[in-house]
């Protein structure tokens, strides 16, 4: 059962590394971002294959199971990423709205000139 979970985790991490590489080759993420994701997913593979290393850490910080530590670690990593993505999306939405609305108003200002020339 544990072996099955480990295999799934490793396959998932490898797929995610492939996607990171794909986005890097397309120029959608830069070298530093590619390095970050490579490091994160390699770390996940390492943890999936050698969970006993985790037990030492979990015992040190008084967490009874290594799995619990993995879950907490996952949340600690995911929450800032989601928050940062949310802020960036909001910022982009705002910029896009400004741009599109300015463009619409430009169209209105140009319309009377066209009428005059025709």
């Amino acid at each position, binding site marked *: 059962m544990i072996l099955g979970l480990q295999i799934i985790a490793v396959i998932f991490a490898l797929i995610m590394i492939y996607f990171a590489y794909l986005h890097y080759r397309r120029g959608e993420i830069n070298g530093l971002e590619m390095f970050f994701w490579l490091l994160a997913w390699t770390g996940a593979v390492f943890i999936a294959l050698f969970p006993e290393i985790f037990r030492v850490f979990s015992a040190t910080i008084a967490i009874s199971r290594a799995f619990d530590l993995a879950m907490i670690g996952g949340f600690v990593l995911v929450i800032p990423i989601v928050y940062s993505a949310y802020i960036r999306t909001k910022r982009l939405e705002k910029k896009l*709205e400004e741009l599109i*609305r300015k463009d*619409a*108003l430009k*169209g*209105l200002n140009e319309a009377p000139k066209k009428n005059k020339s025709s």
Partner: protein
Amino acid sequence: MNIFIVIPVFNESKKIEGVLTDLKGLGLPIIVVDDGSKDSTLEKVKKFQVTVLRHRINLGKGAALKTGCEVAISMGADAIIMMDSDGQHKGEDLPKFINALETKKVDIVFGSRNLSMGVPLVRFLGNKFASVLIVLFFKIYVSDLICGYRALTKKAYMQMNLKSSGYGIETEMVVKVAKLKLRYCEIPIETIYYDRFKGVTIMDAFGVLFNVVKWRIFK
């Protein structure tokens, strides 16, 4: 009072001609904002004597309304009447809004639909739940929070400084009316639902609900 009608429109090629024909005889200047329609809406709107603006990309009802209102104000509007483009609002109700603005001296007039006027039960109940929530949070009762048929003065629009770009704009208006202590009234309007798949979806409703809580927390 110089009154403009602002109509945001998105993919309403089947209904928009009917809406504009209905408003033809009223003699009020009309501004139509095409919010990135993919069908023939824009071509149909251009056949009428109206001011047409176009968002290249669909931004949402709120953004389209704000564009329309800003243009109306730049063209000299003292007040603006907002209407939906799907034909659910009738031109014959328009004089009620003008009358309320002119005689009751209010800043904003909310249109209000009710069950006997054709609102589906689920929407009616959802709307009432939201109204109760707004009363609890902001101490203002508007019976139909999301009705798109409403009128407001230029001064009220400028004061409100609306931020929402989607369907949340109607609820934001109510919240801003409460916060700014603007004068308001409600008038009953007739409504016809042609398409139950258009308009505010359950996901939009959750989004608006999230915003209501956000507006309450971050005053």
